[in-house]
């Protein structure tokens, strides 16, 4: 299969390898977990399709579950095949997924993003955006306060003018905007 060609040089790069290379995560586990996750989605769709009916209706033709049933069956088959192949080549084949420092960088972006989205509701999108940009510039860019404030205030202000003023699209706003009378 075509996906087996890439990883031969990074054999045994996985978490449990003998040469103690713990700096790299192999694709083995992510590959299996994603395939299992997709199988899970397929099962959910299948169950729901069964509830809706997968057969033929006098008036409507195919019932609501008809099309999803086949779609989910194909999803289950293809992701099942991927999972099976992964299990069968578990020992032989484990190309690199990403190194630890790389994963660290991804995480450094992923968690502030999640916090940012969580803060949009209580604080409004403009204040949350200010916090995200300011945090990131300070933590990873080591910017000084003036530059940091200029960018972190300027960007939300720009979007405020574009959306609320020009396009008249209301974005989520919080207590601070309310204090300012918006």
């Amino acid at each position, binding site marked *: *299969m*075509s*996906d087996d060609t890439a990883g031969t040089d990074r054999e045994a790069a996985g978490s449990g390898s003998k040469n103690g290379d713990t700096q790299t995560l192999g*694709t083995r586990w*992510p590959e299996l977990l*994603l395939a299992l996750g*997709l199988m899970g*989605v*397929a099962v959910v769709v299948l169950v729901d399709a069964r509830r*809706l009916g997968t057969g*033929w*209706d006098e008036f*409507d*033709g*195919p019932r*609501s*579950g008809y*099309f*999803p049933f086949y*779609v*989910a069956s*194909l*999803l289950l088959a*293809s*992701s099942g*095949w*991927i999972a099976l*192949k992964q299990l069968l080549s578990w020992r032989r084949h484990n190309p690199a*997924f*990403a190194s630890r420092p*790389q994963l660290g*960088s*991804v995480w*450094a*972006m*992923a968690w*502030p*993003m*999640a916090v*940012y*989205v969580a803060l*949009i*509701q209580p604080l409004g*999108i403009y204040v949350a*955006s200010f916090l*995200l*940009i300011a*945090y*990131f*510039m300070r933590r*990873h*860019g080591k*910017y000084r306060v003036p530059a940091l404030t200029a960018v972190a205030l300027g*960007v*939300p202000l720009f*979007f405020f003018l574009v*959306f609320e003023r020009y396009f008249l*699209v209301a*974005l*989520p706003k919080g207590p601070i905007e309310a204090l300012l009378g918006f």
Partner: protein
Amino acid sequence: MEELAALGQGFAVALTPGNVVLMFIGIILGVLIGVLPGLGGANGVAILLPLTFTMNPTSAIILLSCIYWGALFGGAITSILFNIPGEPWSVATTFDGYPMAQQGRAAEALTAAFTASFFGALVAVLVITFLAPVLAKFALKFGPAEFFAVQLLTFASFVGLSKEPPAKVLASMMLGFSLAAVGMDTVTGHLRMTFGQTELLKGFSFLVAVIGLFGIGEILQTMEDGLAFKGKSARITLGVVLKTWGELLRYWRTFIRSAIVGCWMGITPGGATPASFMSYGLARRASKNAKNFGKGELEGVIAPETANNAAGTAALLPMLTLGIPGSPTAAVLLGGLLIWGLQPGPMLFVEQKDFVWGLIASMYLGNIVGLIVVLTTVPWWAAILRIPFTIIGPVIIVICAIGAYTVNNSMFDVWTMVVFGLLGYLFKKLKYPLAPLVLALVLGDMAEASFRQAMLLSQGSVSIFWSNGLVGTIAGLALLMLLWPLWGMAKDMARRRETLAGG
């Protein structure tokens, strides 16, 4: 000659001052989107689409399609100056573009890339101008069975033509179809897979999916490579442009070959990325300087850039005539048509003449505008690229969040975007293709509707898909595409056996 008259009409529509201004805005935004990491044609258009809901459809499509042309042009800038392909279809441009920049020939490489992009797009627009009306007229005879067969062919081609393992293409596609099915079933009114959640009634918006998969996913992947990147600067002077244009004439064969490859790959859902690689490979094989490829050969810039713009543009042909997009960005534009209340497909050429021909005319104009804009503003873009990722990264996340929110004014969509972002990152790392997922999400309801209508016509007999020559041929081709990977596997096995026996 009917087409030329209609095209003239289209130019009259596209050349109104308002639309010309939109063209410039679109191109400039598009180049910006093309150079920034995490923003590409597909999700750039997706983010801006909600802002066009109130515009008239013709102006809206001119704005959005110009963003698309701009992004196609912009991809070349990052590839050549920074060795970072802003878009997957610009990867092949880095092979020779970046070495040229390192040798101080950045201006030459950029001029060649922009000219090649322009030429490729122009050929594709000519193809659209003369082929689209014919194809649309032909497609007017299509019934539900034919439409489903064409859709099947589109999806089967993904399985047959993708570089990725067929199982992963299929899984990605079926996930798209599953997500498309969520919400109210338009035929029976039943609720599907909503599990009592009111947010799910409307189903998953493909716009949110595109913003997450391509935008957030891309940002996460960019983070992997660390936070710093350094590049070459460039200033293009008229002298260099004219000198390079003189040189380019020698490569007319490469231009024409790449444009043909691009148009073909764009119309069939192969897409711009394989087109650029294929055209690069063909150019290397045909060239006398094959050894120089990868070390800064002008032809190595021309070939992929011509092909990827030709493909990107030609992808609009099946979208307009059949309602089937040839690329993720075309899929987003197609979704736009639906939102503006236009039914994509052959009837568009009958009922919405102004819209269709205005769009086609704007393709000619937009690409001319694009060429002028990028040639004159390169230093500026290079400067933007020098803004550190510690600023650009969070700003792009803010832009994506705003884009996702404005689709339906709902926080649920912003969370969905985050989940799609993580999924996009995983998919990219594990080599699942994203395009089939997006296309299935956009086309899912339409494909299902035409399938069910076909089934109703035939009272549930699948034989309707080979009931006449036309539908039979299309369905047959689709099956062939589906089975194509098996043929490849068989050939591999045979070869392996042969080498074992021989060696």
